[in-house]
């Protein structure tokens, strides 16, 4: 038993390392492993610039964002007792985009300069959207699985339309706005890595320490309460932390869908449902998935790039349909 668990952790982390290496290795310019080593440790290597200024921040950013999205997805699936939700399907990512776009257009983003200001407004957008979806999906105190999902989709569409309108009305800022609809890691730099690390890693760690509550919530809210969980407080904390992560991810890389959906499912398939494992391994797996998706996007149509957000949707769309059908038959 213990052996098997250790193997799972080791395997997941090895896969992440491998994906990071692939992310460093492939791209517009291919760098041999030996050359990566040289670029990392030897001054004056011809790939040093590419390695430190482009590849390394990009794979690190991808890993942190992927981890954040995945652990958020696992948490959402636990809170709502619904295997089909994540920050994307619940409209939180769209809401975060809208928050950021509104901040750019109205100019309030200049109140807090830099990417951190944007991520704050994205956080507000994510939180507000979540509240809206929650209210719409909640009929007579009951949160039906399908209603919640529909509410998320409806709100996402509504927000997408809103952003389109905003783009038409603000043609001078269109290039800044269009970025939000297509999540990408192309603009990675060390500033972004730093911000992502400062917000997403501590929030993810905090989320991880709520694995007990999430386990107990799967027995239903009343049972969890009877066992001593302050469900109202726990949910509020979890959702705010999730919104912080999603807001930051969107502010940095735009809307990247489905990572939060598929990573927890992959983990549960191999490691079971215990949230202590699911949360940790989801973060690792999410990081792996996003780094791989980004790398693939860079390689497939060289010298052009497919944005990471498009890649994840292309990969995960069919997977989502598979889950939906599986749920139906159960």
């Amino acid at each position: 038993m213990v052996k098997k668990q250790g193997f799972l952790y080791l395997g997941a982390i090895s896969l992440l390392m491998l994906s990071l290496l692939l992310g460093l290795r492939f791209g517009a310019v291919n760098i041999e492993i030996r050359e990566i080593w040289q670029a990392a440790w030897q001054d004056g290597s011809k790939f040093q610039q590419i390695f430190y200024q482009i590849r390394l921040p990009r794979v690190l950013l991808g890993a942190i964002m992927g981890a954040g999205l995945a652990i958020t997805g696992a948490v959402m699936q636990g809170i709502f007792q619904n295997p089909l939700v994540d920050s994307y399907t619940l409209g939180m990512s769209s809401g975060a985009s809208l928050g950021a776009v509104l901040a750019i257009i109205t100019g309030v983003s200049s109140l807090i300069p830099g990417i951190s200001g944007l991520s704050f407004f994205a956080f507000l957008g994510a939180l507000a959207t979540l509240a809206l979806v929650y209210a719409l999906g909640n009929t007579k105190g009951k949160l039906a699985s399908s209603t919640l999902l529909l509410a998320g989709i409806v709100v996402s569409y509504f927000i997408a339309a809103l952003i389109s309108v905003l783009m038409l009305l603000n043609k001078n800022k269109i290039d800044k706005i269009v970025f939000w609809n297509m999540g990408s890691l192309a603009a990675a730099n060390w500033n972004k890595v730093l911000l992502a690390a400062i917000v997403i890693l501590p929030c993810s760690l905090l989320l991880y320490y709520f694995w007990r509550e999430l386990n107990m919530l799967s027995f239903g809210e009343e049972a969890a309460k009877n066992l001593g969980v302050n469900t109202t407080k726990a949910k509020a904390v979890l959702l705010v932390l999730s919104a912080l992560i999603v807001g930051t991810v969107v502010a940095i890389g735009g809307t990247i869908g489905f990572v939060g959906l598929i990573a927890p499912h992959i983990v549960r398939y191999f490691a079971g449902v215990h949230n202590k494992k699911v949360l940790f391994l989801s973060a690792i797996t999410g990081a792996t998935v996003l780094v791989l998706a980004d790398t693939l996007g860079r390689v497939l149509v060289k010298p052009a790039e497919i944005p990471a957000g498009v890649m994840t949707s292309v990969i995960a769309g069919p997977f989502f349909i598979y889950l939906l059908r599986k749920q139906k038959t159960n």
Partner: protein
Amino acid sequence: MKDVRIEKLEVNFGPRTVLQEVSLSIEKGRFVTIVGPNGCGKTTLLRSITAAVKKTGGAVYLHGTEVEQLAQRERAKSLAVVPQNTDVAYEFSCYDVVMMGRYAHIKRWQGEQIKDREMVEVAMMQTNVAYLRDRKFTEISGGERQRVILAQALAGEPTVVLLDEPVSNLDPQYQIEILDTMKRLSVEKKLTVIAVLHDLNLASMYSDEIIMLQAGKVVGIGTPEVVLTKENIERVFATEVLVSPSPVMNKPHIYAKSKGFFLDEKEKLHLICGGGSGTPYMHQLFHLGYQLSVCVLNEGDLDWQTLKEFGLPMLEEKPFAPISPESYQAHLKLLQAADAIIVCPSYFSPANLPNLTILLEPVLAEKKVYLLASETSADRDFAAGEVTRVYQILSQRPNCEQGLKLW
């Protein structure tokens, strides 16, 4: 101090009053059962002790503190709940499920301590589920699952356990096993047990005290002998019952009475019986919807008692008294009114022989007669061959049949 005290509790769901003026107090170590018909507020009363329902009036105290004032975690330390069903789609191991019962004692940043693991082991021993520790909760039987949930409740070292119909979906052996465990803990560990039970007989067997609810009000409180009376049950549950001390525990045992299986009335049948020979036929024929009448019987006779329980009209004589001419005439009238006559395998002496010889009356010559077990008639003849003679005459009639096919 009382473990649980409820004062003038009132709960409304919208315009509907679910509980009103409920006051009671429960002492430490008692096994208390709440009974009452569906929708009378049993579960709501239980849930108001965990503050899961919003009350509109009154107060609920747990160890002297109002439950709504207690933090979730504090309350969970002294109060555990076992629900009726635990449907869970996720495959936790049984050990993990029981460990969840320790939640209120575990600090977030410290994790499980040795004490927590020990209490989980103890609880699993108590409910006899130690062998399930690594099995998945979704893959065990209903009875095992309920015992695991019971272990979860006990792992938190509660002083009060609430059980909401804990055995309703279980096979009889598991019902007994779970209730035995709870009873033992209430006696040995002074655990206060408050249960909602559907089965009045289980409630009677295990409870120190019974609280009977009707339409949100307490209508009876006290020992099973005081509360589970024929009158109380018939009034509250609106059905006829028979209550007698159970041969198992000498506690009141409740037998539900059928009102008959069929709505439409069938033919009138008349039974010649006595000494209990008619009782099984009376039960069957009554529930099949036949209208029954019976021959003249002595008070205290077994068949007489059955007849009385059914509330059917009867012709009676004092014990051992012979059949009077008046009774004979009344009997003849009943026979004439009947569509068919059934002769049960009873014993006849000169005292009750007229119940049989009356069948030879000319006015009854055309009646359909069923003779049951006629081949043993000689053995049951304590009237100098008269019985055999009558059986012979009857069996030669074209409208007489041997035996009776009921279904």
